[in-house]
């Protein structure tokens, strides 16, 4: 048994590592350029060359702040064509375009030369001084050159080059410097296409980056409880979660307790009345309740009990009344209770239906066992048989359903907290989701996963301790 527990504990390490990698993988695959979104949120009015420079600095700053610079993982499995320095390209969309070209042509030196030619041309276009009547044309050309930096397909490149051509052809004198650049781009592009070495993309290559990578830093930070800053308000994620967590834990714990307090007697009652109409009624009600999703239930409950047009029994939302923070302790507690009764009931409702059904099934299995029959045969009262003998054996599996219930409660909480406006972790997660607030979302995801994992571990160990008949190797 000790071996089992030890093994179980050991195995959790790679599992946690895998969960963190999974979270990290998700967070790094967000579409679009987060850095750009954040950096440009703060650079409204930038026009001169100086501010182009500044924008770049700002981009770099935000990128470092978000921990997005450097290689992504300890190693990367790429092709021979891939340089191991691609992560040094500042902007994500440009990096992606280059990657796409590498996948097609496989000759990094030529691709790099082409990229630098485009960058130089773009600089030249922005530096170009043209007479005011050519303003629109110049602006268009600038835009096209800028676009060239991050497009990769033949069609898109051709489209942009042709568009620039059409402008420079009309104003050869004014756009002369650009024609030079354009020819340079064309030459580099020709070299890139003609000297393509696609075979290189079929030769696998393993790059080892060492510990100075994004994942390592992220994981280390995560484990040392530094979860970064929220994109929404730049507050530390840890503070935000710390503020939200008590509500969720409180609600979760309370609903667990309530669920068990209701479910066990209901299950037992149903078994005691097995076969009677009471049993059938209880079973039917439980079955129907089990089929109503908690958020549908929440909506209905709210419509009828928080709505002055029907019954206004409970406050509509939130967790406390105004000014409650100055009330005496007991009044304050009562106030919290008043606000939280309805959400808690709906929360625990998720568990009640599930647990009662489990309880009933488990009990039925137990009461059919021989020793219970013996007890009955001995003439013990049914009540004693059920509560003393059957309970002891069927309560254990129910306790371990905690592990199954935990993820359910968390998932349910996500929607319920939104509906009841409880400032918990679920609501935080949804808000973060809508705001593409990756640090918050990923921290919550990882954290809940780890907590659930620990919950499952705990219930497994409990189970093992309590019921040594379990064959551990099979679990």
């Amino acid at each position, binding site marked *: 048994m000790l071996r089992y527990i030890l093994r179980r504990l050991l195995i959790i390490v790679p599992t946690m590592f895998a969960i963190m990698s*999974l979270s990290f993988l998700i967070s790094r695959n967000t579409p679009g350029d987060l850095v750009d979104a954040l950096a440009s949120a703060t650079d409204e009015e930038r026009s001169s060359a100086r501010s182009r420079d500044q924008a770049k600095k700002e981009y770099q700053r935000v990128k470092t702040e978000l921990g997005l610079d450097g290689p992504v993982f300890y190693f990367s499995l790429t092709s021979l064509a891939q340089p191991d320095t691609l992560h040094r390209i500042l902007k994500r969309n440009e990096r992606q375009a280059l990657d796409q070209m590498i996948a097609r042509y496989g000759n990094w030196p030529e691709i790099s030369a082409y990229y630098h030619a485009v960058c130089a041309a773009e600089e030249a276009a922005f530096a170009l001084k043209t007479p005011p009547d050519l303003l629109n044309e110049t602006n268009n050309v600038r835009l096209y050159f800028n676009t060239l930096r991050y497009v990769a397909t033949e069609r898109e490149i051709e489209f942009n080059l042709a568009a620039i051509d059409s402008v420079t052809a009309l104003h050869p004198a004014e756009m002369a410097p650009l024609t030079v650049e354009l020819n340079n781009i064309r030459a580099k592009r020709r070299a890139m296409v003609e000297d393509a070495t696609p075979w290189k*993309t079929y030769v696998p290559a393993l790059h080892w980056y060492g510990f100075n990578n994004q994942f390592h830093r992220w994981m280390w930070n995560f484990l040392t409880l530094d979860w970064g800053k929220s994109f929404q308000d730049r507050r530390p994620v840890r503070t935000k979660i710390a503020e939200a967590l008590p509500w969720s834990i409180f609600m979760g714990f309370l609903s667990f307790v309530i669920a068990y307090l209701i479910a066990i007697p209901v299950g037992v009652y149903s078994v005691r009345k*097995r076969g009677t109409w009471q049993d059938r009624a209880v079973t039917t009600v439980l079955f129907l309740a089990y089929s109503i999703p908690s958020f*549908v239930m929440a*909506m209905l409950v709210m*419509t009828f009990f928080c709505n002055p047009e029907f019954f206004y029994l409970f406050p509509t939302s939130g967790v406390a009344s105004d000014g409650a923070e100055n009330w005496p302790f007991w009044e304050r507690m009562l106030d919290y209770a008043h606000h939280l009764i309805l959400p808690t009931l709906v929360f625990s409702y998720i568990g009640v239906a599930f647990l009662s059904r489990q309880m009933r099934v488990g009990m039925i299995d137990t009461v059919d066992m021989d020793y219970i029959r013996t007890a009955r045969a001995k003439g013990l009262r049914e009540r004693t048989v059920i509560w003393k003998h059957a309970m002891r054996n069927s309560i254990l599996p129910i306790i371990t359903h905690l592990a199954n219930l935990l993820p359910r409660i968390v998932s349910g909480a996500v*929607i319920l907290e939104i509906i009841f406006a409880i400032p918990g972790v679920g609501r935080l997660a949804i808000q973060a*989701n809508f705001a593409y607030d990756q640090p918050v979302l990923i921290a919550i995801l990882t954290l809940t996963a780890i907590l659930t994992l620990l919950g*499952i571990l705990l219930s497994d160990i409990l189970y093992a301790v309590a019921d040594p008949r379990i064959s551990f190797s099979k679990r």
Partner: protein
Amino acid sequence: MSPPETHPPLPPPELRPGPGFYRQVWQRMRKKPLTMFAYRMVVFLALVALLADFMAYNKPLYCKYKGETYFPLFGDYLSKLGLYRWDADLINADWRTDLELEAAFWPPIRYLPNDLDYNNPRLTSPLDDQRVENWKYWHFLGTDRDGRDVLSGLIHGTRISLTIGLVAVGIATLIGILIGAMAGYFGDDRLQLSVIGIAFLILGIVLGYFYGFQVRRYVLADALENNLLRFAGQALLSLLILVGTSVAAVFLAKPLERIPVLGQKRYIWVDIIFSRIIEILNSIPALLLIITILAITEQQSIYTIMVILGLLGWTGIARYMRGEMLRTRSMEYIQAARSLGYSEWRVLFRHAIPNSLAPVLVVIAFAVAGAVVTEAALSFLGIGVPEDVMTWGKLLKSARTDVEAWWLSVFPGIAIFLTVTFMNLLGEGLQDALNPRTRIE
């Protein structure tokens, strides 16, 4: 939100699949009126999903216009297939108001879910006066804020809900059965490979990943952008490359096994590895994971949701299959097949899996219910479902901003509730039929 993790008790050995096993199960199910009722209702829902257009559409099924006979609904079908050309004046016409039809046979509901009735916007109650021409245009279940017909939305929403439920669970079942069966059957002590074989297998997997996915990543991305079917094909090809390379690697290792050190046999921990994967997926709250992944998928469509629900929802089925397999693997007929010298894989696919499938049906029924709920929850939160698709969850969502419009919460709520109830009932009935012992005397 996740499919129930109830593990139905297993049928006793004498009921194990044999000829006529499924017929027996069916016979037993037929005796239970409630199960049969649920079964018929599920069939009814499927019919509604299938024939939604015939029940609610904004064009007549048949009509006469300017002396000519039209079948506009079929015309739409044909023109989508490129077999029919609408006349210019009919293409974008509103058949209800623009055209003077001489005779017409209409579907019972004359609205599509996204048709806006400007005369009845802002939450028209089914009980209030409605500004409609005659009762045939009545919004029987009211309208939403923009004047969309709720009943039509419910009917067409059935299609979305059931399709998502079935496809997602279909994907999940495939993965779940495969992984669950392998984990349960092989356990940690049945699949042996030589040391060199294991090394080559790992190498094969890495290479297979490289050639299947790394090299082909832009092929896959392009296919995803263009056409979902093509993407499915390409993804399958990638998967085949991965599997093929891995298998080839193992075979390549064969000649090297003669070298004594490299030839030593080792057991592969199939169960431990797969169980860890299941554990990881299970420990992340399903809805949260789905939401996070939907946040990084750029294409919003119901297909994306189906695939993601499928790819993440297989753990329940896999766990159940694994449990089932743990028992099956020691059955006599399996032992007999093994002792005859059949390969482990053959025994697994030819004997073990087919004989353990029946109880999985129960989990599948529950899983469909679970997927329907998850889809409704996602639409309710406004995540993942595109703008122009009407679903039950979306109707329910509009009830959140308009609480007084009880018809917006009650009817979709009932639809979700009934679907889930029927699927659950069916699952229960199936479970009872598979295992008559637990039936309550």
